């Protein structure tokens, strides 16, 4: 959590405002062919600013592991983006999106293991970050596998799918209740935590499996929106403004983009959203 009293905290928060503005203009420019590349650049500058200024947070006292992790991640990301074949780019976006979701899961999990007291509200948003992050991760992996034809691109359906999914959702909600209500650091809490993560991962798989390969771009856009929401929830858990703003920007723009893409492909948004909960309509 970032204090708002000291000068350095003020500088951090003002820079976050600037970064948020750069994200907004970046998205705006990304929507027009002539300015799209500039928009992407602006948003990258905003990201760099936000990251660099966060390092001045006085709660951060050791930098070795941060440096190693950032360098490792940068190298992997750089080569992934440079070496990927042009036709495989949507797959890569899906994979990157899943990795971002997993990062949100780890941030939320790390908050739980930090050993400090967490209020009911923080437990609730941490639960949401874990759930949405895990769904994004496993869902994106399935979408990636379908697009790259590592698994069959056809819609996978089985008897009792609707019942199974409803049961899964009910169990997740029940686990969520236990998660928020139970006292932390008890052995039973760890069981609830691990069960919840397992169920959320399964739910992500179940969400994407019944959707055919041709609809994967729409699904990836939807999962992209989810990863924004996961970041937003993590932002509430950490009381970090820039996570909340950028997360809800991505969440909202992702949903609207999904809906536009659905219209362009002659599909209804609810059909894609709840595909596991209704008989599947094959698309051509």
């Amino acid at each position: 959590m970032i204090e708002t009293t000291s000068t350095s905290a003020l500088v951090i928060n003002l820079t976050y405002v600037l970064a948020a503005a750069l994200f907004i203009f970046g998205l705006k420019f990304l929507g027009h062919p002539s300015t799209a590349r500039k928009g992407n650049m602006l948003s990258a500058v905003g990201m760099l600013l936000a990251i660099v200024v966060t390092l001045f947070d006085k709660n951060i006292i050791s930098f070795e592991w941060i440096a190693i992790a950032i360098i490792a991640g940068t190298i992997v990301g750089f080569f992934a983006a440079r070496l990927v074949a042009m036709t495989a780019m949507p797959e890569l976006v899906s994979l990157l999106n899943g990795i971002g979701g997993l990062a949100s899961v780890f941030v939320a999990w790390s908050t739980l293991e930090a050993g400090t007291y967490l209020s009911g509200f923080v437990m609730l948003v941490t639960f949401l970050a874990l759930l949405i992050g895990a769904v994004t991760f496993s869902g994106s992996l399935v979408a990636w596998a379908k697009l790259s034809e590592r698994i069959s691109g056809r819609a996978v359906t089985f008897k009792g799918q609707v019942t199974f999914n409803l049961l899964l959702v009910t169990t997740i909600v029940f686990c969520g209740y236990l998660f928020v209500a139970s006292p932390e650091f008890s052995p039973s809490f760890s069981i609830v935590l691990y069960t919840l993560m397992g169920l959320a991962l399964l739910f992500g798989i179940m969400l994407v499996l019944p959707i055919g390969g041709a609809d994967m771009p729409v699904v990836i856009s939807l999962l992209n929106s989810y990863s924004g929401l996961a970041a937003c929830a993590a932002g509430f858990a950490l009381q970090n403004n820039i996570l909340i703003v950028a997360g809800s920007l991505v969440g909202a723009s992702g949903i609207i983009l999904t809906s536009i893409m659905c219209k362009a492909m002659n599909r209804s948004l609810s059909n894609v959203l709840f595909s596991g909960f209704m008989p599947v309509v094959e698309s051509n």
Partner: protein
Amino acid sequence: MDNIYLLIIVIFAALLGFELIKKVPATLHTPLMSGSNAISGITLVGALASSGTENELLSIVLGTLAVALASINVVGGYLVTDRMLSMFKKKQR
């Protein structure tokens, strides 16, 4: 009370997100998706705070993993978007 302010921020940011994306040509759908995916890598900022603090070991390990994963998302996301858009420009000429 702080959480109420934060919720209001969410509503404004969400409305802004809706407005920004309303009219986008179909050719820009994939780059836009990729570009906003890179922005969702903002989790990195949250991960930094979990990685560098004086917490339990497990918390620091998880935070550091999150930093590495989010860096992949950020760097890969922006670079691949840029590559897509550079192709797009060539195609138009």
